[in-house]
């Protein structure tokens, strides 16, 4: 390890560099992945917008069931599943392919060779996904949560994923330098974990269905691990890359990084079974899942501490940088959502939260407040490097941040509160079920309103993005990074 970089070394002259060779290399790497990363980002944003539309319809139907109720295409079940898959596999996977592979290539100092093939694989991924989601809306949906995509689309998805993931593995294989940075561990592991999860789940549930409750166990093993062994490592890798990168300060502790990574790798795989608490599966499986869920406190505290100690004292810089404002919001959410998740696995808590809106809120806490916010930060950092332009509008970035932050906070508050009330009331046999359902309506309306905030945020994001992408002339004139307050300091973006 060389000495930690001097934070102020660049402030005298922002254009001077003491590692020109590395910068030249990075420039080459950025160029090698530019086309495919742009394609994945554009796809991700389209899926984000499509998923938002599905989400709004679903949220509105939750308290106004007759809305768009005349058509089978727009029934609640199909809209909800279309939303889930558009967000998880459309937004989530595409943005991982963009940001994750870009970070992997940079850290490995290894350009993406034959990037055209990566682009083609990406096109097939999105074709497969489009077929799948159209299939869901047309009624070919499977009855398995998180695996709703009909069987005729999944082989294409699995195959094109393999062709995409292999580029990250190849970048790692041809890496330069002795030290493997923590982000590389997470991305490499995630690239192997996801296909393992997806293919096993497809085979055991859709193609050659296992008998009986094994299907349910596989289903929740998959559904929970998609969050924990795919979205989580990718978002953590992004945060681990961007925090030191923007602040120019090393990550606090290598040892905490190691502990956090391996604890996640060891414990998370067991945790999904806590979705089946009370179900007819052998109780040791559930208890093992509960223990693993509680043990997840270890990686969460470790990662949270590592991030916190790397950022502490530089809060002004975090607030000024569009990237870090999103990333730190996501990192804080990671700690919160994981600790809440661990407590939800305890039997006595689960008896209340299971089968309520609490779980829905928890899922959005993880996928949006944690994963998506960090990925937004990743896009804000990556795009200027890929396009060699600045973000056109700081105002739109602020609108995006506040729309997302307020929207998701309102949603989480509403769903957690009503979920808990709902759970307590459902455990009381004297309260009629319909009364409980009616109690949730005002809170579900609050969720729809939060959805409007998120929609505004996503539109601001998309407008800013496509403005940057297409209005090159207008943007090029812009000097210096786009920051979120008026202070004219260089060096943070």
């Amino acid at each position, binding site marked *: *390890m*060389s000495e*930690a*970089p001097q934070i102020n070394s*660049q402030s005298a002259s*922002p*254009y*001077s*560099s*003491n*590692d*020109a*060779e*590395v*910068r*030249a*290399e*990075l*420039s080459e790497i*950025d160029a090698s992945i530019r086309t495919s990363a742009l394609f994945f980002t554009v796809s991700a944003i389209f899926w984000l917008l499509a998923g938002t539309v599905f989400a709004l319809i679903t949220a509105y139907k939750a308290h106004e069931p007759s809305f768009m109720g005349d058509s089978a295409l727009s029934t609640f079940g199909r809209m909800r599943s279309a939303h889930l898959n558009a967000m998880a596999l459309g937004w989530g996977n595409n943005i991982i392919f963009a940001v994750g592979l870009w970070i992997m290539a940079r*850290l490995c100092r290894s350009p993406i060779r034959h990037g055209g093939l990566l682009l083609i694989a990406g096109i097939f991924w999105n074709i497969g996904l489009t077929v799948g989601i159209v299939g869901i809306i047309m009624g070919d949906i499977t009855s398995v949560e998180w695996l709703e995509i009909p069987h005729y689309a999944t082989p294409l998805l699995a195959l094109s994923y393999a062709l995409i993931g292999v580029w990250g593995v190849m970048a790692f294989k041809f890496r330069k330098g002795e030290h493997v*940075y*923590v*982000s590389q561990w997470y991305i490499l592991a995630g690239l192997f974990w996801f296909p393992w999860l997806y293919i096993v789940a497809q085979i055991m549930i859709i193609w050659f269905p296992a008998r009986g409750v094994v299907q349910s166990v596989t289903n929740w093993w998959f559904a929970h691990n998609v969050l924990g062994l795919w979205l989580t490592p990718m978002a953590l890798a992004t945060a*681990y890359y961007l*925090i*030191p*990168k923007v*602040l*120019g300060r*090393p*990550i*606090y*502790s*290598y*040892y905490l*990084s190691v502990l956090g990574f391996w604890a996640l790798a060891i414990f998370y795989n067991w945790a999904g079974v806590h979705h089946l608490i009370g179900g007819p599966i*052998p*109780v*040791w499986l*559930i*208890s*093992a899942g*509960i*223990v693993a869920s*509680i*043990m997840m406190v*270890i990686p969460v*505290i470790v990662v949270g*501490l590592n991030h916190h*100690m790397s950022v502490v004292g530089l809060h002004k810089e975090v607030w000024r940088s569009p990237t870090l404002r999103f990333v730190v919001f996501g990192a804080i959410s990671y700690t919160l959502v994981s600790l809440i998740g661990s407590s939800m696995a305890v039997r006595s808590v689960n008896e209340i939260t299971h089968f309520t809106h609490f779980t829905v809120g928890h899922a959005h806490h993880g996928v949006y407040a944690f994963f998506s916010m960090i990925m937004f930060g990743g896009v804000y950092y990556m795009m*200027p*490097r890929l396009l*060699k332009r*600045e973000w056109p509008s700081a105002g739109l970035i602020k609108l995006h941040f506040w729309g997302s932050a307020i929207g998701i906070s309102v949603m989480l508050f509403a769903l957690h509160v009503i979920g808990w009330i709902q759970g307590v009331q459902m455990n009381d046999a004297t309260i009629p079920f319909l009364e409980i359902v009616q109690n949730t309506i005002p809170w579900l309306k609050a969720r729809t309103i939060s959805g409007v905030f998120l929609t505004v945020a996503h539109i601001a994001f998309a407008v800013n993005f496509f403005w940057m992408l297409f209005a090159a002339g207008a943007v090029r004139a812009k000097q*210096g*990074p786009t920051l979120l307050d008026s202070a004219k300091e*260089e*060096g943070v*973006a």
Partner: protein
Amino acid sequence: MSEENTNSGPHPSNKTSLEQAAMQDEHMQDVHAQLMREKEEPQEGFSPVPIFLMFLFAALCFWGGVYLVHYSGGFRWDAYDPHFNPNADKPAPVEIPLFERGQKVFSQQCAVCHQATGAGVPGVYPPIAGSEWVTGHPQVLSRILINGLSGPIEVKGNTYNGAMPAFGPNGMNLSNKDLAGVITFIRQEWGNEASDVTEKMVEDYKALYAGRSTTWSAAELKEGLGPIPEPEVEEVVEEDDEFAAEGEQAEEAHAEPAAH
């Protein structure tokens, strides 16, 4: 990565150094502004893991182990209840009848002297088959077994003078169940036809003679005998238990619809 590199001139044969040269061009620097203002690639510090975290993690691991021991249903495939008790569904251990238990105890503890036939050894060990001491008042035999017997005693017309050891708390310390078993066995085997001696009776006798450290003599044995407990009492108690159990089941059956 060092300062000198930035100042070195271009080498046409080397792509990297061409890039470096290009970056010194002011126009190129503007185009690469984003890249140039980047901080260095991320690095890691080596701060140690705080010690309190290690304690916390050790505590969590310990808790996990305890939880698994308590709620894993013995790691059986057919256990579904977190409070599963691996012993609950096994049939209650078969209660060996007093007589059979006594038979075992007799063959281990008594048959050496009194012989498997109960005939004893003439002149040395008195017979117990057909002995009036054995088949008479149950308290007599109980006294002999609990505290032992010494001195001359006349059995079936012959006088013996030996020392019977104590099997109560001062001697071999057999359990109440074993004592009751062996006494019952002796009183009912080899043509003997006396009543059962229950565990409860032995318990009472033991309590009665807890303070006695000396053995009995033949004369003492006949004195101060209590009334023979009614054997029916126990059966009545058993019936009560059954009724009570049935009553509970009935109550549960009634309570069930309300609970659901």
